[in-house]
């Protein structure tokens, strides 16, 4: 056992620094691995990226040219960038509201004691744990215009068949539907936890006062769920602004750039066109957008952490 060694180290440290400081030394020691990793792979790269964004470089040549803010100017004046930002915003505008309302309804369905409720809950959770790639592959088959299940069902119902992922007007919406489907389970679980925190007496009192279920939902449920709803909405927006895998696997940014999101665009520019300066400049512009929402979130995070 290594106890002997540690006991001796401990004794030595106590002798050198005193009892109180010994605690401090261990604290710093335990922090060290995570701190080194964070500095190396998060903070340092973030600053390095700022430097790269000021260069005109192909990632290979040893002497890149310094071009100052030119990359940023090019990004902001690029029509393709604005289109990507527009696509990403469409995605967020669709996925976030639906991603709140649908799970809310599911959670409402799953409240209360019912036999088999836990099984249903687990089933609804299944899409969430599946990888984005697997989900995308399955849904691309579902969306297949000629042979896919969705168009078959539509035609059975007498409705017109759709191009889905091949239709520039519908492609992003198709991705949104898939994303809402996949995310519903985990959001539902979060909301369920929140719902269970609302005392039943509130509803009882409201029922006695004659309030309908709908009114109860509006005046009791939604206000008391506000913190969780805010959390879900803001994390949804932040995540949505960074969407990559779905457009990459499903449509490669098509058709005709209708699903090219900002991160997909950044990826292409960094690793295909080999223009990391431009790509990192773009990533910082996106970061600025995300930061605005993150600052909104900060109040939530500060509220969550408790300092001993």
């Amino acid at each position: 056992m290594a106890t002997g060694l540690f006991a001796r180290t401990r004794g030595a440290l106590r002798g050198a620094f005193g009892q109180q400081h010994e605690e401090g030394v261990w604290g710093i020691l335990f922090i060290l691995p995570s701190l080194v990793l964070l500095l190396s792979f998060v903070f340092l790269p973030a600053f390095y990226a700022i430097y790269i964004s000021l260069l005109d470089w192909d990632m290979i040549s040893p002497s890149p040219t310094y071009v100052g803010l030119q990359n940023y100017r090019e990004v902001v004046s690029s029509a393709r960038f604005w289109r990507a930002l527009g696509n990403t915003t469409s995605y967020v505008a669709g996925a976030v509201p639906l991603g709140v309302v649908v799970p809310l309804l599911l959670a409402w369905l799953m409240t209360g004691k019912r036999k088999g409720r836990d099984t249903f809950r687990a089933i609804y959770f299944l899409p969430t744990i599946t990888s984005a790639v697997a989900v995308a592959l399955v849904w691309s088959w579902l969306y297949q215009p000629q042979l896919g299940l969705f168009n078959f069902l539509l035609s059975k119902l007498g409705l017109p068949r759709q191009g889905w992922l091949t239709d520039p007007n519908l492609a992003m919406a198709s991705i949104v539907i898939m994303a809402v489907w996949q995310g519903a389970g985990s959001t539902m679980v979060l909301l369920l936890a929140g719902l269970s925190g609302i005392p039943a007496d509130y509803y009882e009192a409201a029922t006695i006062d004659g309030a309908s279920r709908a009114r109860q939902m509006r005046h009791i449920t939604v206000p008391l769920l506000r913190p969780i709803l805010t959390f879900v909405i803001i994390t949804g927006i932040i995540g949505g602004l960074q969407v990559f895998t779905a457009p990459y696997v499903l449509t490669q940014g098509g058709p005709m750039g209708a699903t090219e999101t900002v991160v997909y665009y950044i990826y292409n520019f960094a690793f295909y066109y080999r223009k990391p300066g431009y790509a990192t400049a773009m990533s910082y512009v996106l970061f600025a957008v995300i930061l605005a929402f993150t600052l909104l979130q900060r109040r939530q995070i500060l509220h969550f952490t408790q300092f001993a």
Partner: protein
Amino acid sequence: MSAVGKRKTSGSWKLQRAVLGTTWYVVSVVVAVLMVGPFLWMVSTAFSLPRDALSYPPKFIPSQLYLGNFEAAISEAPLLRSMANSAFVAIAVIGLNLLVSSLAAYAFSRLRFPGRDRLFVLYLSAMMIPFQVTLVPVYLEVAALDWVDSYKAIIIPAGVSVWNIFLLRQFFMTIPLDYEDAARIDGAGRLGFYWRVLLPLSRPALVTVSLFTFMGSWNSFLWPLIVLSTPEKFLVQQGLQYWRSERYDIVSQLMAATTISIIPILIVFIFAQRNLIEGIVLTGIKG
């Protein structure tokens, strides 16, 4: 509050309850079908003959359970190999991450040292830096370290997760401080306490964190895509996408490969489902 208004004849009350209950079941089942439907369709296609899968109108239930797609997926795609790769990487990441995160969480939650609180805020701020900002520079770092096309580039950066540190810290804070004094009286130091008291007591939290870390690693796509270039080294998601680009028209084989790739996660899910769901609650609500 009197019970008078609520009294109804037992007959009509039971009927109303029965109707509501049945409606609930019907609705819940419909939703369940919507949730699981795509997967059922995937499995149905996976067991179909390739040409049957492409038939229109589509056959919901294949006329026979054809295993050829699965055979093809295993023999012609590096599917099993990629799953083995992913398993290796996932286990390594869990090991490293749990160690690093739990040590940091221990320090942040129970040890006092100068600058602790400010350092914690710094850690939290790391979560706000979106991954696309660090994508290129980390790749360059990894290239400089000659880790490109190696699992080191995936495992080592994944060793730190502020989210895990945050979660474990919340949990560690619920363990009374006296335990450390008791341990000290018994002759254990900080590390002894950590290893023999704190960790065993935290098993539920550690299991939850491991599950989520496993899921994150198994399902990861973008970073392995950037870092790995040898097909034999591909991880499962990347391998799936790579193979799909070569086998675009053989849908039944693609669906078979996808089905196989989901099985490990499914197994984990079935065994740990309660834990996973409770874990989600832990992340979203104050611990």
